[in-house]
């Protein structure tokens, strides 16, 4: 059993990764941390992402141990600088 999540990259992370969205397959029960590890394990350019980035799952800030479900939108959020 596996799930598919939609990852989204913004600002600096979009520049680093060279893409704004990416569908990723993960084993069922995977957490945000597992997703980060999976991506970074792919090597360049993904290994330039932080090991413990800020993320939002379905548009809400989430911790790294949050369990993901199929179809979740996981956004990699660089340090914010609004205003």
């Amino acid at each position: 059993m596996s799930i598919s999540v939609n990852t989204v990259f913004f600002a600096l992370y979009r520049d680093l990764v060279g893409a704004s969205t990416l569908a990723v397959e993960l084993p069922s029960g995977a957490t945000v941390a597992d997703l980060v590890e999976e991506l970074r394990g792919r090597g360049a350019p993904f290994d330039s992402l932080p090991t413990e980035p800020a993320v939002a799952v379905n548009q809400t800030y989430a911790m790294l141990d949050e369990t993901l479900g199929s179809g979740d939108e996981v956004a990699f959020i660089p340090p914010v600088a609004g205003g």
Partner: protein
Amino acid sequence: MADRSSIIHCHVGPEEIDSTKLLSRVGSDEDGAAILFIGVVRNHADGRPVSGMRYDSYVEMSQHELKSIAAEAAERLGTDRLAVEHRTGELQIGEISVAIAVSSPHRAESFDATRYIIEEIKKRLPVWKKEYYEDGTDSWVEGTLPPGTGARFKGSP
């Protein structure tokens, strides 16, 4: 102005911000004080001449987050007439990037709510800005880790 018990207006998008209109949204005959705060693109950053700025945002999430911030201000600070807009896209020097209007019976609530909203925007709103310098270079402005994610940055950008 009219009698209006509650107004919460939030918007994130590329439209130019009309701060006068924003202020006129919040007034009520019950209120004795109102504040308009605007953030504008300035021509320098850390001593470097700046020629312009680009604001990127996770727009849908910013809308939710801005509504949460406004609702918190209303609940904690005793005013529920407030309007907030944050702009996205390419901005020139002097253009408004963010505007907050608050109206309340007495002045303390307006001051406190306005300050709360701008501080929370800077901490939590998924918005990023890139500075364009007079010398032709550019860079992302260093930001703040939002709360609620447990993120840390050891040995990574």
